[in-house]
């Protein structure tokens, strides 16, 4: 029933004709989230969209277009009309790792989008089953290195955040674990809790409660500073692997060719969302890290995306991981 109503609503909106930039936004804006509802990117997108809607005076409707590691929704966003009424919440995977993972990718993260701004990053943690015989990161890395492929690493599927971030860890620390793929973080975490697998890398959002509950142990967080959500977990710098700095970032993009005044307006609304007390609190409660003023600009995001693509391509190519 709801679908019919929203379809009618959509038809009415389409019939209203083109809107002028001066009066932007004159109708609801669609924000494509290239992952299923309920995941970390979806939650961040909904919190940010809620606040941006208030600033812009028009509803931002979140549309989940999941599939093929987020590239289905991202392709759709890249190909939609650059009128500012379709934007998307991009992600480390879709705008960083995807070009190396998907040889037939139908978009280029650096060329087919107008960067709007960074929304929030979720730090990556190195975690292990609770009875893993290592008390800190140094011991863990030494043992994992010595054990070679006898140690089991769980990840949430080829191209997932947990897969790519652990590829980076393995490359930097010289680990060669046996990789056990799961479909999604939930099942992977389940088998880590029950001790079927030894370790994994994943976003803090998925792990906080399991770490606090003592079901798994965290060796380090891959950010420059400790997270207020887990103040006892040392950073990778403190724990002895300073080069491992990685976070699953989420940022807003518009299709290439969206007018400058519109992208500026969207960037402004995003900035207001990130300085709104209530929105900040909701994001920080999730364990997310918010960009500072300098990191909130459109230019900063553009540069960052280029860096990310350049950083992930060799790591993924070296590991031979390909998703088609």
């Amino acid at each position, binding site marked *: 029933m709801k679908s019919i109503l929203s379809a009618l609503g959509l038809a009415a909106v389409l019939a209203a004709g083109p809107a002028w930039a001066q009066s932007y936004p004159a109708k609801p804006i669609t924000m494509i989230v290239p992952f299923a509802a309920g995941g970390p990117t979806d939650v961040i997108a909904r*919190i940010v969209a809620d606040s941006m809607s208030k600033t812009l005076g028009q509803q931002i409707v979140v549309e989940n277009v999941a599939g093929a590691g987020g590239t289905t929704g991202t392709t759709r966003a890249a190909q939609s009309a650059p009128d500012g009424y379709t934007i998307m919440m991009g992600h480390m995977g879709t705008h960083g790792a995807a070009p190396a993972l998907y040889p037939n990718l139908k978009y280029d993260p650096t060329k087919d989008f107008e960067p709007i701004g960074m929304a929030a990053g979720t730090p990556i943690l190195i975690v292990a089953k609770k009875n893993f015989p290592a008390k800190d990161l140094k011991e863990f890395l030494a043992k994992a290195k010595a054990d070679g492929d006898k140690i089991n690493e769980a990840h949430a*599927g080829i191209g997932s955040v947990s897969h790519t971030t652990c590829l980076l860890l393995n490359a930097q620390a010289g680990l060669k674990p046996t990789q056990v793929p799961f479909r999604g973080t939930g099942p992977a975490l*389940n088998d880590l809790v029950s001790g*079927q697998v030894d370790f994994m890398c994943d976003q803090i959002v998925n792990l906080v409660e*399991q770490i606090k*509950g003592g079901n798994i142990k965290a060796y380090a967080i891959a950010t420059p500073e400790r997270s207020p959500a887990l103040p006892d977990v040392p950073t990778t710098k403190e724990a002895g692997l300073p080069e491992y700095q990685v976070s699953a970032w989420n940022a807003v993009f518009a299709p290439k060719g969206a007018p400058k005044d519109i992208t500026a307006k969207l960037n402004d609304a995003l900035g207001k969302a990130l300085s709104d007390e209530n929105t900040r609190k909701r994001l920080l409660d999730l364990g997310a890290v918010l960009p500072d003023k300098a990191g909130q600009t459109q230019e900063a995001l553009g540069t960052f995306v280029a860096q990310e693509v350049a950083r992930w391509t060799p790591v993924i190519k070296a590991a031979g991981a390909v998703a088609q």
Partner: protein
Amino acid sequence: MEQFVDNLALGFSTALSLKNIGLCFLGCLVGTLIGVLPGVGPIATIAMLLPVTFGIDPTGALIMLAGIYYGAQYGGSTTAILVNIPGEATSVVTTLDGHQMARQGRAGVALGIAAIGSFIAGSIATLVIAALGAPLTKLALLFGPAEYFSLMVMGLVFAVVLARGSLPKAIAMIVVGLLLSTVGTDLETGQERLTFGIAELSDGVDFAVLAMGIFGFAEIIRNLENPETRDVVRGKIGRLLPSKEDFKQALPPILRGTGLGAVLGILPGNGAVLGPFASYTLEKKIAKEPSRFGRGAIEGIAGPEAANNAGAQTAFIPLLTLGIPPNAVMALMVGAMTIHGIIPGPQVVTKNPQLFWGMIASMWVGNLMLLIINLPLVGLWVRLLKVPYSLLYPAILLFCCIGIYSINNSTSDVIFTAFFGLVGYALLKFGYEPAPLLLGFVLGKLMEEKLRQALILSRGSFATFVERPVSGGLLLVAAIMLVIALLPAIRKGRDEVFTE
């Protein structure tokens, strides 16, 4: 014990606030409605309603969403009985005897016993969650990839034994289901398999697409063929309350079904789907006259319906205690909790006791409401389904299409559904049962995942499946079941049962 009572008291004081009762009622009503209407499942509905819950407090939001979920399980059985279309995988079994009862003019009793069985199961399952939530999660933790794989092998053997018609055809259907589940991106290497270069297939075939196609669309095409033998029960529903004998006959299956469903529901990986199948097989095996099954046996509805509802509720245990969603609906619940800043996990009980116990108590309140909604309002639901075919067919097809479209906002899904509708029609024509295909498909993806994980963990040794005691035991049960089904004497009896 005292703590148990204290906890439940806290739960009921939360669940019985005026606002939460209202939200629970709303959830149950919406759930029943979408459950009754084929084509719009709880997953799509909950996903669509997630944003609405922004304005409500988390406890109320979850009470409403949970109401939609178990309301849909209730409503699904109404459609299964009256139209012979299972709204969800879990109500496939209800069509077998439920629809036959309806054709015999006992639709009312079938609906009544489904509702009463579900209520009894729901009440017991609520107590089970409250009492055993924490300790029972240890059971799920015993299950590694090898155990899951063996459990699913057992499930498929059950499906073969359960299937109507010839054994080779049932096995063929399961194998086709397993094959269909391998379409899409390979889990380990990321290569595409059986996609023929069609981008839409890179994530595999969607469950809803397949189910709606081979059950929903195919059923409608078949009905179009013979308009005079239409399957929607248009005759009298008859009285709703089962007679004393009916009830006496149905109570033991209800209790057994509750037990089976509750245990299977706790297992992550959508164990709840197995509950009704397992219960049906059990009832048929222990029945004095197994030949009545498939021809309107009341036990064939009572047991599976109870198992279905018990499983739907105990599926909350891994979510509430471990924070791990056992199926797609629970994954959406995780989303709803995270949106409200509550991260599901072991901390929920201590940090948000009101939410934890309030939600559990609301399940019992919700079950009572569903009994009240379903029994007196069944006339309304029936009227919804009694609409003449000229109106009903396009409406069902339209709802199916909307439902399918709304899951992924994808038009290709609708086209695939139409394709599977034709396939399903062909299968019916050649005398192949689609139910084992669907089960093979549902379990296939997970089975392959677990098989490969178990083999990676054992470094390629198949012995792991028999060396691990739980896994070995499950395989043994499966083997025994298969031998029994294939034994010439029993096989002959079975053929007599199924040949009409």
